[in-house]
């Protein structure tokens, strides 16, 4: 199981975050700023952590992220639990 978080690179304006922050403020929350990112929890069939990591990196490169605008963080989840 790997967890890939894809988020806009620093410095890029995040329209969704902007709208969300405004709405939260309207609702009375003391919010300064919001950034929105996406998380893919991927159930992969691989042997070890290292392989999972390199596969996830490849997934980001090919589909999940665009290095021109996104940063991504990969985390290999071990132990029980799964993509439900």
């Amino acid at each position, binding site marked *: 199981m790997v967890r890939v978080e894809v988020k806009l690179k620093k410095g890029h304006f995040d*329209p*969704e975050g902007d*709208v*969300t922050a405004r*709405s939260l403020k*309207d*609702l*009375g929350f003391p919010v300064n700023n919001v950034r*929105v990112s996406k998380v893919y929890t991927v159930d992969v069939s691989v042997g070890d952590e290292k392989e999972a990591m390199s596969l996830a990196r490849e997934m980001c490169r090919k589909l999940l992220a665009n290095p021109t605008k996104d940063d991504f963080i990969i985390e290999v989840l071990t132990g029980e639990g799964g993509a439900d």
Partner: protein
Amino acid sequence: MDLERAKACIARVGGTNCDLELKVALEDLGLRTEILHMKEIVKKGLAEYQLLVFPGGFSYGDYVRAGAIWGKEVHSKIKSELQTFIEENKLVLGICNGFQVMIEAGILPDGEIAEVPKAALANNASSKYECRWVYVRVERGGTPFTEGLTNGEILRIPVGHGEGRFLPESEEVLRELIKDGCVLFRYALPSGDAADGEYPYNPNGSVYDIAGICNKRGNIMGMMPHPERAFFGWQLPEGSDSLYGDGKKIFQGIIKYLEDY
């Protein structure tokens, strides 16, 4: 009430984009219609209107969830105003994004403007935006919005949305809806049978093929399909010799209700 004195308010915020065609439809039936930005509604209230419409579009970019941000804005800005409006038995209609707004605002299914919604319009089962004509079956005629329609009647109306999969909070909520006759429209096969989840007749995977629901009193209704895009005969995909399409029937009901109001 004299139709000449009646007035409709089409609400809008940034990202609303189906307001003009709605105005065209309502005005074609002789109902005076104004498009009001939420800001103006906050300022002047809703007292002079008998029909409030939340139209389609992408309010606030559909960020967070479709309809969520506007839905919550309804809470923070016009809740009591709207409550009064509903209690006076005036009509509230939500189409597409407007339906999403009403669900997120908790106006439907209960008609109470609940803090926490009891249903969701989740993303389509296909995970895609779906623009297509569907067959909508009338489940209950004779309500303000289905006046003049008969149970089982099939309407041709298009949908255009990415998040229209109706999900009730629980089995029980669904049972109640059905029992109370609050399911007004369901997606159907061309034959008239319920679509029973079959894609693309049920374009989004809605539970129980739900396309539109109303509150118990029947004065609040939300639907995913766009009757304003099926108002005139020429809008129909097969073309039509008649001046009007099926969408008009829904607006016709509204007019009748307002005349009797």
